[in-house]
């Protein structure tokens, strides 16, 4: 079970309170997590990664286990602690003013 913490604006958009918990099987990657997340919350499509290319939006960051995973290959396995739900996957808006 993967725990995901979304930024406030995306929680509001998807009408989510608290963290999102997703059950995944097989190798858990950033792509597989986001695929399931977007299937459950279609209004998040296009807000974290581009619709067609699936590239991360420039001002979105992925943090977990005190590491910045944003530049890791999206098909790379996520850390065990994230896969087991010990640590959450944080999807955050980059520090860029505003």
């Amino acid at each position, binding site marked *: 079970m993967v725990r995901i913490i979304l*930024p*406030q*604006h*995306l929680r509001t*958009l998807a009408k989510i309170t608290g963290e999102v918990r997703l059950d995944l099987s097989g190798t858990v990657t950033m792509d597989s997590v986001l695929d399931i997340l*977007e*299937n*459950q919350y*279609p*209004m*998040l*499509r*296009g*807000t*974290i990664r581009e*619709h*067609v290319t699936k590239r991360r*939006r420039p*001002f*979105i960051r992925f943090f977990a286990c005190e590491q910045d995973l944003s530049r890791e290959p999206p098909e790379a396995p996520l850390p065990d602690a994230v896969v087991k739900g010990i640590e959450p996957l944080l999807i955050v*808006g*980059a520090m*860029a003013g*505003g």
Partner: protein
Amino acid sequence: MSFIRLLVGTRKGAFILTSDGKREHWTVEGPHFGGWELYHLKGSPIDPNRIYASQTSSWFGQVIQRSDDGGRTWNPPGTKPEDLMGPDGMPQGESNMFLYDSSSETGRPLTTHQHYDGSQRPWEFKRVWHLEPSLTDPDTVYAGVEDAAIFKSTDGGKTWKESAGLRSAKGQLWQPGAGGMCLHTILLNTGQPNRMFVAISAAGSFRSDDGGQTWRPTNKGLLSKYELPDPDAEVGHCVHHITMHPSRPNVLFMQKHWDVLRSDNGGESWHEISGNLPSDFGFPIAVHAHEPNTVYVVPIKSDSEHYPPEGKLRVYRSRTGGHEWEPLTNGLPQQHCYVNILRDAMAVDHLDPCGIYFGTTGGQVYGSSDGGDCWEPIVRDLPAVLSVEVQTIP
């Protein structure tokens, strides 16, 4: 009695201002979508409870919102449970998917446009600047986007399709203005349902006579001496806004980067009507609801000084269709005022006398219930105002 609903988009959310027909007392609701940029909100002319909104963010991209109850509740179109599943069993969630048409069927592969440095760049979607609901069908709505293109939805905003013919109108010569290469104005008219006008910064104005399939530039008479190497080029002009009175669809008024202009032949040619304005730079331009020859602009000092000349916020009104302009100052700050009024931030209601409203980058929304003679702030301290639209509800 009629009532008035103002739809105000700001840098940090949307606000809805309502008043009865007297327009003396206003209620202010919001922010809706707090923290997001609301570039534009506009209601369907035939179903005023149907309102479309462009919600956007540098972080999270584009979201389209729709209200079916006059702005009380909102949802991205297509996210109700019955809408969610597509024919392949996958969730849709496509209301924010603006894909440029590169299909072989249309014969128009994705083209390039000119970038600031003169190089060619492929079109890349950034945001929706303007939403223009159909005059006849509440489920049909047009979107003007950056990079400049026009999209159409016929299912209430759930899905969008580009009218790619517009980019064929010398799109390779278009370039971004300071605010980006945006399609910010869409004009429709009941009397000529297949005719549409759009305006793009910095490309110019364009007309379609076949419902948006094909387009041609309509910029004859525009002069951009200091902006273009060829001052009267067919495209490339930084048109800031165009408008028309619905009873006279062949008469158009334009606020260009510099110059206020008028066309009397459906955009075939334009002539300058700046007359005695203290500056002919500005962004919005509006026409009185009942007097087709009465036009409003808000002069701004220059392209690098986006504030009113002399620190005096003055709306200028021409009752002669241009050339002769009078300053309207009663109730507006006449010293130390350095706000800007953006292109989509001025609108008129349809009551008699006509009401006119505008929002500023300083967060004020001013209203006049007597055609501009007297002004009052409706609200003073909103985030920077990006757009103001009016609904006159019977």
